[in-house]
């Protein structure tokens, strides 16, 4: 008593575990694999999929190891013929209400249900019957929901509520027709942080921009999200030198969580609109007046922005910087430093931003300096 640890025995091996940890936690310490679909160590135990069943000496029914606490002296079996049969039956049941669309599914190769079906070798299914079918919904450009692939693990609902703190989705209806849904079956309209997509073990939730960009054998590029000062770690899954999807790993500063920009808004990387070389205006208007016509005017209509060659010419960095320095100096001399202002970006490093404000204050001589995350 009093101790916060207990000793239990799993498959003949002793393990010491925290008193308020689950049998599944303890088993994972021993690197024993117990199949699971709804377990997520960051979320409150759910106990829905019924795959993590184990036998505990002295209890008459199998116990869901993800939702049962360890006890001193407990003796657990993680795999017996009986348990494997129960697990297999549950996978069979799931597959009896599943579109079996692995051929085209974004998640194939990285899908827990597919993996279990493979593991248990389920080609023939004893069960058959009505299957859920839903029309495609949502106009948002980020998240695709194919709810007939949902296995009701509840991870999306829980992460949205418990971690993201949004509660945009919950279970609706009863019985086989239970469905994860935004309120009143409206279109999904939320933060689109994609935390739900990240935890979904199946192809029910995927990124729209993932489509046909490849599913496996990615080259992983570890990098930092360029969008804001938080500096979340992201992993680019690259295929054919193109980003196929973006995710974040759990052992990062942001613990795998991202926001809509970091997770989904990466299309700029391969955008035709990106400037890859400096441009210098050929006939700049008079000082102090902004050019009235918008040189980018027709960029929105066509496929990519092409700078108007009548107004811009490409230049080298060397020339561009020299030109900028020269013009800044001219303007400052003529009108004073306070007509100049500088806007930096959270997408730059701290060091860059520090230097920038230093430059504005010392070299240009103005306090007109700001930044989307504020100086």
């Amino acid at each position: 008593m009093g101790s916060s640890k207990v000793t239990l025995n799993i498959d003949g091996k002793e393990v010491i575990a925290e008193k308020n940890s689950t049998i599944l936690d303890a088993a994972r310490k021993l690197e024993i694999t117990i199949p699971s679909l709804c377990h997520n160590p960051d979320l409150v135990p759910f106990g829905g999929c019924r795959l993590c069943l184990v036998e505990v000496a002295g209890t008459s029914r199998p116990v869901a190891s993800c939702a049962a606490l360890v006890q001193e002296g407990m003796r657990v079996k993680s795999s017996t013929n009986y348990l494997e049969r129960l697990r297999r039956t549950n996978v069979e049941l799931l597959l009896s209400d599943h579109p079996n669309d692995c051929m085209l599914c974004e998640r194939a190769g990285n899908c827990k249900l597919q993996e279990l079906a493979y593991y248990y070798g389920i080609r023939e299914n004893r069960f058959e019957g009505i299957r859920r079918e839903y029309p495609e919904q949502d106009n948002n450009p980020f998240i695709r929901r194919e709810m007939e692939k949902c296995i009701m693990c509840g991870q999306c609902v829980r992460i949205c509520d418990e971690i993201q703190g949004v509660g945009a989705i919950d279970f609706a209806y009863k019985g086989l027709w239970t469905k994860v849904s935004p309120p009143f079956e409206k279109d999904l309209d939320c933060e689109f942080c994609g935390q739900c997509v990240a935890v979904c073990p199946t192809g029910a939730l995927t990124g729209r921009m993932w489509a046909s960009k490849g599913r496996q054998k990615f080259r992983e590029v570890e990098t930092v999200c360029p969008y804001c000062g938080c500096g979340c770690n992201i992993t680019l899954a690259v295929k054919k030198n193109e980003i196929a999807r973006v995710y974040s790993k759990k052992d990062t500063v942001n613990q795998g969580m991202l926001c809509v920009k970091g997770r989904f808004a990466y299309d700029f990387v391969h955008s035709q609109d990106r400037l890859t070389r400096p441009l210098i205006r050929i006939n700049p208007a008079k000082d102090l007046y902004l050019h009235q016509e918008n040189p980018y005017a027709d960029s929105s209509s066509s496929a990519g922005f092409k700078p108007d060659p009548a107004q811009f010419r490409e230049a080298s960095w060397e020339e561009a910087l020299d030109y900028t320095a020269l013009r800044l100096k001219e303007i400052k001399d003529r009108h004073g430093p306070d007509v100049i202002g500088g806007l930096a970006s959270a997408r730059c490093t701290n060091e860059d931003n520090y230097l920038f404000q230093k430059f504005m204050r010392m070299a240009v001589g103005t306090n007109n300096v700001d930044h989307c995350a504020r100086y």
Partner: protein
Amino acid sequence: MDNNSVVIKVCSGTGSISAGGAEVLHAFRELVLSSDLEASFQDRCRADKVGCRGFCARDVLVDVVIDGEKTTYERVKSDMVPRIFEEHILGGSPVQEWTADELHQSFQDNQKKVVLAHCGEIDPEDLDAYLNVKGYEAARNAFNDMQPVEIIEKIKRSKLRGRGGAGFSTGHKWEFAYKVDEKEKYVVCNGNESDPGAFADRCIMEGDPHAVIEGMMICARAIGAGKGYIYIRDGYSLAVKRLRLALKQCHERGFLGKNIFESGQDLDIRLYPAPGAFICGEATALVQSIEGKRAMPTPRLTRTSENGIRGKPTVINNAETLANVPKILRNGASWFAGLGTDTSGGTKVFSLTGKVKSNGLVEVPMGATLRDVVYKVGGGIDQDRAFKGIQLGGPTGGCVPESCLDSRVDYESLAVAGTIMGSGGMVVLDETNCIVDTAKFFLDITQAESCGKCTPCRIGMRRMYEILERITSGNGRDGDVELLEDLGSHIRTTSLCGFGMTAPNPVLSTVRFFRDEYNIHIRDRKCPALVCKSLLTFSCIEETCTGCGMCKRVCPADAIRGTRKKPHFIDQELCVKCGSCFDSCKFGAILKE
């Protein structure tokens, strides 16, 4: 009030009101107050509305009690009131043709009313009526003269066990909550009454709302709870209304609120109108629901009594359980224990329905036999057909055959017989019920009521239902019975909550006791009880047919051929098995098999 008084008690439960109870009550009251009667008579005569006494099939029930002598009238309509008033109340001779018959008498006489004792006797909307029958004395006593441990010991000794289905010892449950050192604790009355065929809790909450509240107060005293919820399905509108009124009355009299009975303890009880899904009655789902979330069961890492609403100790008791509590405190633990069996004290209320002569709410001592309930209280099988089985415990209960009729109704014996106490629903089946069709009927309810959280229950129950559907429609396959057994026991062993653990019961129990009937459906494509439409054939018996042509006229499918005065013939290809020809033939010349 016994001597020299006339009391007219008009049943005012939900069933009665829909049969015109309010009009009957009004008619009596008008007559009592009519001006041409002597004032002295008016002083000693009154018409009361009272709770349901269980025989809703014969509503509106009216008791006329003259100088303590009771006469019961049944199926009273407001136009019958003047004659009853004239001949009986004024004239002294009961209107015999309208009084309760023998069946009615034996229905009432073979019961043992404890928890239903006030239902049908006192006005549920009148706090003083409850005080007149010693109401709130037990609560006052508990708060003023008893220590929590004393109360808990007394409840334990009474052998009161939860009437919500699982039969957990109420005293022990209270003790768990009592022992947790925590300021904030809750007492909850579970009035969800999940089973659509049960109505015991509704009648108790409608007919004796103060008893439920008093039970909650005693529980609050025992465990140290400052807050209570009555969790009741919103559809029970009359019960909601009466409980709300009762709570208001209690707050007004200071029975609830701050420092109740000068004990220093505060107690606030609120009504929580529930959405009323089946699963809302399950304790962990109920906690979720009260916390404002979707009612879905959660894994029981710890006990609800220790870690319930907002993580605080919470005692959840069924409405009937709670209504028993004041009686135990008043009449003693050994009195209550003595009513029942060694393991379970008191009585149990059942909702007796199906093919019995007298349908209704019946209260019998724990340990009475099923035979007593069906034959003594229920008056036997309707139209004296052959008994086939009883579905016990609601749609998640089991169906037991005739050989179990001598089983006792208590938690252990029913488990041995192959079913559960559950909601206390009892549906009696006779030879005209098809067992497969009956199982399908219950699974149709449960597969739709699964909360959807766990795989075996959400998908498995649907698949079981679909297998039954194919068996009853003539598409059963070899091995379907075994598949049902396998899947049923899989759902039972692997589901998260008590729902999935019991929902396959109707199938598992009927496969166990009526396996042949399943096999006949599958192998012979026949339904012995002639219920499953797709398995019936209708044909014309040549020798008996007079050629009257009646069947031909009623057949909606134009399936019958024949010329007048010649035997007719049914084209099986066209027949849609509607049964109209069978019903219309006056000569019994249509064979249904």
